[in-house]
């Protein structure tokens, strides 16, 4: 057989001894039981394809595409295999080589999405139109008349999961009287137009605890979506812009309330490690990035964080739990709220199936994971679900809606904000 080998760096996989310890943590292995859909299998395939032993076929690509990049495997791997870096390298190589064409519609949607999020002005425009769609009741009309069911499947999925656009925008809080620290908040792309009120809640909680939140006007989309999709060039460009913007702000910490973005910002150092002009700056930047739960939990004092009588369950976002290894902090913060009862769900650390645009590309697996998550949530009898990542919030929300369950899905900072006001 002759084929052009795909070259990419498989060094992050060097320590993989095929022990299989990661198998039972992998959502796609849990669902299928198949080695072809397991971390160990994917690592092996990536190594063999990079070694030129096997062709980068459609089938092989599919096994890699089914990976959620949730990095649960990486978090449990005792050998320290860098799965996240490995799959990103592989995806970038596949992308550059254009080895396998995707369905035209999926490809088009994907390109549109990536271009959109990186451009604040266009994103605003699109958000405006979609908000209109929501506000005018057109969405309801489409659903009620059954027209929606005639839309192409990929569009329908997008429609069900598109972010809410009628939530209030971000409003910076007043500067605290005696600020003890100075931080910046990453506003992001979709978060900025869809979850501005979560930012507001985060900033208000910080400010109540004596932390000044400064404005960083030139910040932009973090580039995580681009990196995950293998668009490394765009990802690098966005990273550099953010580094410049946040350097000017001179803050103690860069606080992030979207776990996916936080994980990616913490990887800027790695992303730019090969660029002598940027490596050191990227390292400094990375060293300041904190997830909002991480930052709050690291602050001195263990005082109560307000009062809220609510029975909740915590959905642990992959990009927080696995990519950033933050699992205890959010729970500890919730326990500091008087009257709040935290009930753990089964498989709290298993991906909900959101994972960026995974919904669109692997609808079947995404739905199975979502349903599994909803089952686990409902089994707790919680009155609300708490998460720390907008992607997960959307996915869980849509899963609950599908079952006709009106259980609110809140960001952790929203809970704190309510409890403290």
């Amino acid at each position, binding site marked *: 057989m002759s084929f052009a080998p795909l070259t990419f760096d498989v060094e992050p996989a*060097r*320590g*993989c*001894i*095929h*022990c*299989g*310890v990661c*198998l*039972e943590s992998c959502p796609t292995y849990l669902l299928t*039981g*198949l*080695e*072809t859909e*397991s971390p*160990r*299998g994917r690592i*092996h*395939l990536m190594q*063999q394809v990079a070694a030129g*032993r*096997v*062709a980068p*076929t459609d*089938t*092989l690509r599919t*096994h890699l595409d089914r990976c959620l990049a949730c990095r649960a495997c990486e978090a449990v*791997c*005792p*050998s*320290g295999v860098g799965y996240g870096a490995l799959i990103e390298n592989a995806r970038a190589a596949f992308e550059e080589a254009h080895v396998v064409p995707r369905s035209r519609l999926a490809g088009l949607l994907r390109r549109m999405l990536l271009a959109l999020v990186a451009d604040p002005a266009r994103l605003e425009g699109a958000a405006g139109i979609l908000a209109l769609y929501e506000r005018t009741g057109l969405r309801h009309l489409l659903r009620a008349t059954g027209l929606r069911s005639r839309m192409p499947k990929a569009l329908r999925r997008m429609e069900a999961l598109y972010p809410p656009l009628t939530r209030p925008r971000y409003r910076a809080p007043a500067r605290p009287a005696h600020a003890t620290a100075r931080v910046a908040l990453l506003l992001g792309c979709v978060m900025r137009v869809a979850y501005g009120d979560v930012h507001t809640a985060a900033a208000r909680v910080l400010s109540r605890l004596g932390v000044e939140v400064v404005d960083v006007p030139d910040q932009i989309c973090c580039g995580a979506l681009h990196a995950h999709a293998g668009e490394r060039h765009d990802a690098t460009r966005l990273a550099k812009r953010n580094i410049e913007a946040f350097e000017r702000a001179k803050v103690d910490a860069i606080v992030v309330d979207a776990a996916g973005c936080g994980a990616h910002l913490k990887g800027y150092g790695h992303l730019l490690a090969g660029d002598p002009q940027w490596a050191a700056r990227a390292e400094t930047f990375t060293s300041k990035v904190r997830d909002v739960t991480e930052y709050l939990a690291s602050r001195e004092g263990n005082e109560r964080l307000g009062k809220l009588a609510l029975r909740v369950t915590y959905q642990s976002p992959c990009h927080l739990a696995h990519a950033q290894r933050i699992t205890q902090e959010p729970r500890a913060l919730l326990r500091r709220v008087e009257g709040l009862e935290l009930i753990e769900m089964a498989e709290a650390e298993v991906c909900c199936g959101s994972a960026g645009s995974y919904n669109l590309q692997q609808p079947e697996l995404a739905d199975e994971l979502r349903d599994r998550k909803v089952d686990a949530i409902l089994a707790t009898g919680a009155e609300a679900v708490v998460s720390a990542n907008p992607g997960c919030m959307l996915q869980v929300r849509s899963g609950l809606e599908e079952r006709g369950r009106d259980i609110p899905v809140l960001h952790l900072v929203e809970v704190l904000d309510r409890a403290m006001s």
Partner: protein
Amino acid sequence: MSTRTADRLVRDLESICGERNVFWREEDTLVFEYDAGFDRRPPLAVAVPKNTDEIARCVRAARDAGVAVVPRGAGTGLSGGTIACGDAVVISTARLRTIHEIDAVSRVAVVDPGVPNLEVSAAARPHGLFFAPDPASQRVSTIGGNIGTNAGGPHALRYGSMVDHVLAVEMVLPDGEVAVFGGVAPDLPGYDCVPLIVGSEGTLGIVTKAWLRLLPLPEDVRTFLAEFPDVRSGARAASAIIARGIVPAAMEMLDRTTIRAVNAAFDVHLSEDAGSMLLVEVEGLREETGSATSAIVALCEDEGARGVRVAETQAERELLWKARKLGYPALARIKPNSYIHDAVVPRSKLPDVLDSVNAIADRYGYTVANMFHIGDGNLHPLLLFDLREDTIEGVMEASAEILKVAIESGGALSGEHGIGLEKNHFMFWVYGPEDLEAMQRARSAFDPDGAMNPGKIFPGGDTCAAIPTERIKRGLAEGMWI
């Protein structure tokens, strides 16, 4: 084999299991070419049936095509048991994952072969029961695989290995018939075939259901870690504990290299200037555990223990065990490749054997790490190396020397990982031709055509000669024995 036969077999398998549960493309079978050991070879095809009936039909289809069958669980085996030698079909139990019943009164669990070991204990816990065999791979490795290898684990010291906990099995025989062996009632009439099947490494059939013994959870568990200046003093303490007639539930040794590796992998913060550590667990009634703990601590101190860290909470206990149980893969942080051994030696010879192992590793220039079940003399010396610089031939040669030392000390080839492809050619180091012949006849009673996992356990055959590591080992086994 002709491609026509192969194609037909694949189509037959697809009609039994459904297309998406049969793999034959090169890029698919590639991920079934390994287990956690060193031998590699992709099978002809892989079928992932969903129940006993489908498994039986797959076995019959393979038989009709004249193709051998290899059972596969999670593929965490360390001795190549699930590697297809010739053109064989791998039958995976991954989709048989149901726990059918936890009978709290009879203390029996009825489970599918693909259920991961730990899930049995998790299901039994609400009934105040647990499943004792606890291979370090237990979160992943399956009951079928555990039966295949007669898996042990740290707690085998008190509770024994799989063979002591399997009451009955349902098995698809090499001709595709289904039979049940053993039973839940004590003292069954007729031959008890269960102990023969447990540890048969998939050479007698495919286990499709198992009846497992459950035990009541102990009233009290104490876990602690004693730090020693070197390996010898730790080993002396272990011997003194056993000599005193105390049987801890588990007693594990970790040496300095291992300590460094687990510190790098987990937040355990073990003291890095210790030369060795004993991780000890005692279980039982509260008054027993209390007195056993003080007796053990005193004996450790007599042998020079510098400090004892007691796990105060369940979380800390779990952390210490996680560090121990995942110590083997954690060692990849020190060198990317490792070869784990599994010899058993008489406890009295332990310190000398460890010295010889170190000497061998030194001579070949490998780092050696030790982390093992010291309570029952089951050594797991690991040779650490880097295949970018070292050759696999050298590693295997050093390994054969280690095996030889263990056997010369009166020990055994394998404590718990099985023989598989890894040590089959070394079998005649411990058994005479008559012994092997008798064993072969027992196997033939189940599998007269040798169609079930051929090439494993028995020495001398050529079925697996296409696997390079297998050829190296055979050369060593036959060349080194005098």
